[in-house]
């Protein structure tokens, strides 16, 4: 009888934990949860058990990946392999929309491997190697690449990008020299993860965020977790160092070249990762900005002339098919397409 009751309570505690982990949990849920806790001390203890267990499990993936020399991802010494799962073609470096679920599946499959490996290495006292290695990853125009780092972090490099990774014992340092990258950083409080983007440095503990570095501006956009952006160093002309900017999900930091301070604006967090699926999502964006984006993906540049520059475009374009993107733009905005050997010119239709 006593056993039955405690099982029932554990079940309720599990239900509460699952409910409150749901982003849709409401204030009313929290009030009900409070009442449940108040009703019986056994309830609180059952909930403690769940939390204790999750506390123990939370660290598991990174413990294993940090010291996983024998896994399919041999860490920093060899160049990282592209996404390599059942659903994606082997050796493919371009991940298009059709492969995106395959990629997620791969992440989950990797977790299974992690869990198995965990059993193998757990109990070994030393989890971190002291050596520091440098690794560089580059994508060409139109190419994307999924990189798995030694600590379990994944970085999805977009078209025409360069990332350098230098992991040390105390810190995980990376630099995005140019281009765009979507980071999914493995949690590790004692070994912070930094991304250098020239004038600014991004510090994280564990989160998902996107960085776009272009010659005239940098943008940092957070999908999940918290990210801190700090000036890398004080510019000689600057009177004082700008304070770090803390970004929460749905916020974007943008700093234009030559400006000492960045600006923070709100964005739709769901669009942060849309490029991963080969899509660009616009809402009344200026055509010249849209074309700037497209030109990052294709070798033949598009140029917009005349009044067409100020046209506004709303809709979704494919980054994997220049012709279809052009057709959507030209059709929607009533533009004329002219081609030369070197470029494609968009102008207002007569």
């Amino acid at each position, binding site marked *: 009888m006593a056993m039955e009751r405690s099982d029932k309570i*554990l*079940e309720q*505690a*599990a*239900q509460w*934990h*699952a*409910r*409150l*982990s*749901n*982003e849709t*949990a*409401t*204030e009313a849920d*929290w*009030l009900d*949860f*409070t009442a449940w*806790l108040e009703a019986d001390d056994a309830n*609180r203890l059952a909930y*403690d*058990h*769940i*939390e*204790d*267990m*999750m*506390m*123990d*499990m*939370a*660290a*598991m*993936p*990174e*413990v294993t990946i940090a010291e996983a020399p024998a896994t399919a991802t041999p860490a920093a010494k060899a160049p990282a392999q592209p996404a390599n799962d059942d659903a994606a073609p082997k050796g493919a470096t371009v991940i298009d929309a059709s492969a995106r679920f395959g990629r*997620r599946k791969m*992440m989950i499959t990797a*977790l*299974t491997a992690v*869990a*198995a490996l965990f*059993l193998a290495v*757990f109990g070994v*006292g030393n989890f971190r190697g002291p050596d520091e290695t440098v690794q560089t990853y580059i994508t060409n125009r139109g190419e994307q690449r999924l990189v798995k780092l030694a600590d379990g972090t994944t970085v999805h490099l977009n078209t025409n990008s360069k990332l350098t990774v230098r992991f040390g014992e105390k810190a995980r340092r990376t630099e995005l020299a140019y281009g765009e990258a979507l980071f999914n950083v493995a949690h*590790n*409080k*004692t070994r912070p993860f930094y991304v250098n983007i020239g004038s600014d440095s991004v*510090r994280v*503990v*564990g*989160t998902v965020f996107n960085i776009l570095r272009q010659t005239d501006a940098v943008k940092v956009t957070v999908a*999940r*977790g*918290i990210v801190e952006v700090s000036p890398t160093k004080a510019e000689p002309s600057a009177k004082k160092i700008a304070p770090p900017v*803390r970004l*929460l999900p*749905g*916020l974007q930091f943008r700093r234009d070249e030559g400006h000492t301070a960045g600006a923070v604006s709100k964005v739709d967090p769901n669009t942060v990762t849309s490029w991963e699926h080969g899509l660009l999502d616009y809402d009344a964006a200026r055509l010249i900005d849209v074309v700037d984006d497209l030109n990052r993906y294709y070798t033949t540049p598009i140029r917009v002339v005349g009044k067409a520059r100020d046209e506004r475009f709303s809709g979704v374009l494919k980054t994997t098919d220049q012709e279809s993107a052009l057709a959507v733009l030209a059709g929607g905005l009533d533009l004329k397409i002219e081609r030369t050997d070197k470029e494609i010119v968009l102008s207002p239709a007569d």
Partner: protein
Amino acid sequence: MDGSVKSSLIDAYLAQRDALKRFLTARLRSESTAEDILQDMYLKLERAEISAPVENMSAFLYRTANNLAFDHRKANVRRKLRDEAWSEGTVTMAGIEAVHDVPDAEESLDARRTLEKVMTAVEDLPPQCKEVFKACKLKGMTYKDAATHFGVSTGTIEKHVSKALKHLVQVYREDGG
């Protein structure tokens, strides 16, 4: 920085303070600890430069309080854990989003064995339940993303997580966790 979002969050905090205290007291069985955490939370909100579009402020405040209570329990229960980073502001703030510590390598063998059993139990869960649990609770996928990925409702995701937790916590507790 948009100061108005922050000030409205602080307004919400002040309006909810009594309710949050009641929650924390129930959670930790200590009114004075609840008061400490609330004070801590206020300072964090003050310092945080939040210009965030916090969608549901009340739920956000509860979640924050819950995570701080979690951190507090962890610090108490596992005092033996050396953890320099804990007191650092940024890291603790990031803790609001459930960034957790790594158990020290010297943690007792018993705890390791228990965790091994729990991890084995994870593998023994029914396939979808297992994948959902791993994605949401170990990988940190949101319920919404998981629902899209698995092609089910967030309610079903919640049920899988709940079922997995119930089973795992029984293994955990039986083994003296």
